[in-house]
């Protein structure tokens, strides 16, 4: 799966959960997910929706939040979220192929 594909699908899931579907065609990877309207309740929904979207057994949302706070200046961007999904998918895929 290309990185662009991850970004686009992550963006689509985020705006859907945030109730901002009208923004679906204008991908902004630097946008904060919280500025888009993701609150703590929707963060839970977002975790489950991204797991479904990318067929992940588990997306470590808590780890992502902690890393964002420390490493990325608490920006919580869509692009960073997409990267977390991509890494989780790769980890899952490599785990499956090594079995």
């Amino acid at each position: 799966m290309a990185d662009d594909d991850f970004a686009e699908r992550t963006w689509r899931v985020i705006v859907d959960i945030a109730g901002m579907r009208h923004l679906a065609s204008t991908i902004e990877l630097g946008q904060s997910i919280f500025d888009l309207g993701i609150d703590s309740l929707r963060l839970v929904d977002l975790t489950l929706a991204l797991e479904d979207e990318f067929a992940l057994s588990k997306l470590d949302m808590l780890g992502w939040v902690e890393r964002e706070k420390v490493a990325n200046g608490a920006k919580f961007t869509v692009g960073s979220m997409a990267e977390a999904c991509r890494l989780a998918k790769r980890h899952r895929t490599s785990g499956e192929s090594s079995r």
Partner: protein
Amino acid sequence: MTNAVGLESAFVVGTGRCGSTLLSRALASSSRVASVSECIAVLGAHRVLSSEIVSSERFVRIIGEVSPDQRAVLALRASIKELASVSEPSPELDHPLCWLTLPGLSSTPRELLAAVLLELSDETEMPFGAHMDRLFGAIARHTRRERWIERSGGSLSYVDRLLEFWPQAKLVHLFRDGEACAASMSQHPYFRILVSRAMTREPERPISQCLDMAIPLSRFGAYWSSCILHGVTALRSVPRDRVLQVSYSALCRAKERELGRISEFLELESDWVARVAPLVRANTTARPWPTELVRSCRLGHECIASFDAR
């Protein structure tokens, strides 16, 4: 740790429906602490944990006012166990502190209220939250306790604001398994209102519409997880020696051990555990939960586990 008025402060925080009322009741039997129950919840966290600078006179007036939301919740008191004891024929005519908080501290709550409000009646101007600190201090002094411990249902959702006003406070975070907690919330009008408003992003959604809304059980699980995520994230910034995390199911399973941890943390009297242990009874709500509910609670459980492991 002491606060501005020289009294130690502590809070019991939780998601609500987590056993904190039981702990508050147990703390009430301590001769050292004033167990201040549901004070912030009844007065409204959004209202009283504000940085707005007000005079004492205005503070006293505002906390005595009954908001439309409070009035609507009072009208439901027959179906809310915690409010069932509010027996006034017209409770909206009474002071909100006399609904739940002061009756838990005194057999003559109106006299206690008068004494406390008299102490607060001066010209001091300060942030609303700082007035709350004075209020708690006055309650402790007039009940002849060394310090106070406030506990309001659902306080984990605003623990960050508690920490703004009481940065030195000790915090007991009592949590219950998410699935059991969510199931309990789904039966409780107060939490049906909270979840409905959070889902619709309508903080002033009329209570009747909130209660009529069909809410799947998994939404309560997601609400529980979001409270835990929000609260535990805030608790991570507090030094370890000022936060104690306690599991309700562990409290029920091994009550002497868990009460002992609480007693040591809050520096209660040596016989407190033996006195209050009979209050804690085994509570078995474990059952096969729907998959969607389990999934919605997973993030909350992960937060709790990561906090324990830090």
